[in-house]
């Protein structure tokens, strides 16, 4: 028998135990069912969400920034396609290994990558931008290693591009990633880490219009984070296009005139405030600054002694020198301090207390009236009238002409200069005003400082018969989706309280400055020009001839001008740092700018406005709204 081992009772016993196994089995399977019910029914929706998150990634579609054109429709800023590398941390299995791989594939500093991956409060599901402007080679390299790089994604984006390189760099500005500080502000609330915003120039001032709105797509990914299917839920909206008032050619001419020297040239239309050119040298290439710079590159730019990032037209504050005499003349005549025929004797110096203030011309100009004082820039005449008027009257008129305050141009961080007065000195220096200081101020020295844009505005106001128009850089904004073009009308800042006769006298004198005065080098066969030279001292003690003085101590050369004299359509301010006399160093530059302008817009000689050739350029085909 086979049943040798157990007796029958053993077998029965065994069969009884099977009952225990049955009960135990039911119990355990019951527990399993309970657990599965818990997972699938009670927590089912939770796990359903997790599985959706697992497979779908929401990817931000960066909008294309609006384009920037000059007044004739010449493209100044556009976008070019570029590859950007994103990493989704959720899909990354080994972060350290990934950092190493990317560092070697992209020749990037591992620390930079590490920082990009660890900063930001974003969710692990949110792809982070690690690098943009990948070269085609880099992008191909990444794509070919894609299986070894879970969580890595290459996205084609539009990249800001400035086709003209460094032309108009200061006024266009540049773009860059939104900073952590900016993200805290309400203006940037709808942005995220990695968003590109304008960081300088009109790019910054008009960022909200130019920025556009980001879209979104849902991407179904596999376990390696690779895209399987994409659903665009929200298309990105391109930003608005800007139409600037500048003329790209005139801008280039102005910049080339300054060349390697430091300085600024501002040209504007005094009748409507359009800034036609705004040059500042030295400059920079916004294409470079819009890239991600290394610390070293950034330090090099910021610590450059010549301060290329400084927009000298709006941020450079210089003593106006003799160009200030334009304001002085208006103030003296309007305050009835002098009449046009009042004569002042100039012996080459003005004695005040125990100090002798020199005229620029040794031996003096003899007896001069207002007209001659302006033509020959007689310092003694203005010392005298300044002393008679007092500093507060001077300040009052300087302010009327817009000095000491923002012009309101659409550029960030505009500086205002200084219009000194007794109240100002008390407040700023906590000192009383000394009468001797009025004498320096009367010829635009001492405490007085201005920006080249302010001086262009001053001479423009004179040219426009006292009507001051706010300088502006943008004439229109066009909505890319609707094609609607919103024009910005010129803004009148006010009318200076100066009689037309006074302004007529000043204008005529300034015309004579060019024909027979200190600025004969600005005389043009093409167009009548009126102007005023200025030579701003930078150091108090100077001895010997100009050429022996170290360059950084030499005077700044100024020239402010308008043309045509009969019906002015352009006002120019030229400031050439450390270039010496305004008449020799600055006036020829202003003449060249004016000549370039009248050649480009001959109608201004007949008093017609210099409208852009493409006032309303056609809406790009791809941006037209779909019907």
């Amino acid at each position: 028998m086979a049943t040798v081992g157990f007796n029958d009772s053993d077998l029965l016993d065994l069969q009884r135990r099977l009952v225990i196994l049955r009960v135990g089995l039911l119990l355990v399977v019951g527990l399993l069912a309970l657990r599965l019910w818990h997972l699938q029914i009670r927590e089912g929706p939770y796990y359903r969400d997790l599985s959706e998150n697992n497979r779908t990634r929401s990817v931000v579609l960066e909008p294309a920034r609006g384009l920037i054109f000059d007044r004739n429709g010449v493209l100044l800023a556009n976008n070019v396609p570029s590859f950007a590398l994103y990493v989704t941390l959720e899909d990354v299995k080994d972060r350290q290994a990934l950092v190493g791989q990317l560092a070697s594939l992209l020749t990037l500093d591992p620390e930079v990558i590490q920082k990009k991956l660890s900063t930001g409060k974003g969710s692990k599901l949110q792809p982070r931008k690690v690098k943009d402007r990948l070269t085609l080679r880099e992008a191909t390299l990444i794509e070919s290693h894609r299986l070894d790089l879970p969580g890595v994604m290459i996205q084609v984006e539009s990249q800001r591009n400035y086709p003209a390189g460094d032309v108009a760099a200061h006024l266009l500005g540049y773009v860059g990633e939104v900073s952590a500080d900016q993200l805290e502000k309400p203006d940037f609330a709808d942005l995220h880490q990695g968003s590109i915003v304008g960081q300088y120039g009109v790019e910054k001032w008009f960022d909200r219009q130019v920025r556009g709105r980001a879209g979104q797509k849902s991407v179904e990914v596999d376990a390696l984070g690779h895209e399987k299917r994409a659903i665009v839920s929200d298309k990105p909206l391109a930003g608005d296009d800007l139409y600037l008032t500048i003329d790209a050619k005139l801008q280039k001419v102005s910049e080339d005139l300054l060349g390697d020297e430091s300085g600024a040239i501002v040209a504007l239309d005094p009748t409507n405030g359009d800034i036609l050119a705004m040059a500042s040298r030295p400059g920079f290439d916004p294409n470079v600054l819009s890239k991600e710079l290394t610390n070293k590159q950034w330090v090099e730019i910021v610590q450059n002694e010549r301060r290329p990032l400084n927009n000298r037209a709006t941020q450079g504050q210089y003593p106006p020198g003799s160009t200030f005499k334009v304001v002085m003349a208006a103030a003296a005549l309007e305050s009835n301090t002098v009449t046009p025929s009042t004569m002042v004797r100039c012996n080459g110096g003005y004695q005040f207390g125990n100090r002798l203030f020199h005229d620029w011309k040794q031996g003096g100009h003899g007896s001069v009236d207002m007209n001659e004082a302006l033509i020959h820039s007689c310092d003694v005449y203005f010392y005298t009238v300044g002393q008679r008027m007092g500093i507060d009257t001077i300040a009052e008129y300087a302010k009327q002409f817009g000095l000491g305050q923002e012009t309101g141009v659409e550029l960030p961080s505009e500086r205002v200069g200084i219009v000194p007065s007794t109240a100002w000195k008390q407040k700023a220096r906590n000192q009383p005003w000394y009468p001797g200081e009025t004498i320096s101020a009367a010829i635009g020295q001492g405490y007085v400082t201005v920006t080249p844009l302010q001086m262009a505005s001053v001479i423009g106001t004179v040219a426009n018969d006292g009507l001051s128009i706010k300088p502006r850089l943008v004439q229109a904004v066009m909505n890319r989706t609707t094609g609607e073009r919103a024009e910005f009308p010129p803004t009148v800042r006010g009318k200076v309280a100066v009689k037309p006769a006074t302004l007529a006298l000043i204008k005529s004198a300034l015309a004579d400055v060019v024909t027979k005065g200190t600025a004969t080098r600005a005389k043009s066969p093409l167009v009548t020009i009126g102007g005023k030279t200025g030579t701003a001292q930078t150091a108090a003690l100077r001895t010997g001839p100009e050429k022996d003085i170290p360059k950084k101590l030499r005077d700044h050369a100024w020239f402010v001008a308008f043309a045509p004299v009969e019906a002015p359509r352009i006002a120019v301010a030229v400031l050439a740092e450390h270039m010496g006399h305004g008449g020799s160093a600055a006036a020829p530059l202003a003449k060249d700018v004016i000549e370039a302008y009248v050649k480009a817009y001959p109608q201004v000689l007949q008093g017609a406005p210099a409208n852009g050739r493409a006032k309303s350029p056609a809406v790009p085909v791809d941006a037209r709204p779909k019907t």
Partner: protein
Amino acid sequence: MIDRVIDSRGLDSFDLRFMGLIAVILSVGVLSIYSVTHSQDTAFPFYLKQLVWILLGTIAFLVMYLSDYHKIARLAYPTYAVILIMLAVVLFMGKSSRGAQRWIPIGPFAFQPSEFAKLVLVLVLANYYSRASRVGWLHRVVLPGLIVLPGLLLILKQPDLGSGLSFLAVYAAMLLMVGVRSKALGIILLLSVMLFPFVWEVVWASLHDYQRERVMAFVDPDYDPGGKGYHALQSRIAIGSGELSGKGLYGGTQSQLKFLPEGHTDFVFAVYAEEWGFVGVLVLLALFIALIWVSLEIAARAKDTLGALLAAGIVAMLCFCVVVNIGMTAGMFPIVGIPLPLVSYGGSATIMTMASLGLLLNVKRRRLTLFY
């Protein structure tokens, strides 16, 4: 002898029910394997291979069914010796996969001796207990324990925690079947408790990193979803996101998009649960309960101790694998690498399970002879 007489009535309704259940569960497996792997572009896809295993399994089933189980039991010791040699061979020249050496390559396929070792152990122990009354805890517990030990150690050395645990489960189930007196049970429990720290130390030290991580991950699967707890969490997400009615065939995003690794082998249950939902899960659980119920029926009605012990051992092994596999995919147990019988893809496991079920039906077939 009576017991050598073969039932001449052929297949009855009981047999048909038994085999029907097996066929249905196998189909669930093939379908799920097809669903996970259908997008893979291979000349010989997994579901076709699985069909081949089922075919070979059917042959194994028939062999085990048609031979006399007493004859088979007589071969138990030599077979066990062969298996032990194979387990040793695996250690030296086996194919490794994920840090474990479990397979002996045979052509394009790999043979996993530890799977077969489970069935052989059932045969050995059933044979041992049926030969004598084995009274006293030395004969009931210690000696069979010494039989189990070499196999267990070789399997743990691979390491194959899942098969090792199955081995222990078979041993424990056999002990329970033959009955252990409360005193002996008490001593075992006491010894286990006292030895646990030392054993744990040894076991922990012998575990591979990935196994430790799995154990740690079981404690807190959410603590690093991208890393160690990944497997367990993805499995839970797959099951949970199936909700009541599932995402439908091919609709399981967790498995289709490969978030869930091993979707066609150890984690096939998660794939099934994701695509068929709680309703499907209840159906599959019911199928397994029915199969085990029928198997227990066979054990209960076995005409001799050997048959009863064989049946009980096979049922215990089956129960253990089903419960532990579903438990681990559902996050109730640590992940130990036990396939779901008849459902998971795998040649050795499928053939072994079908052979076991053939042996089981063999036991039932012979009990009927008593009544003639």
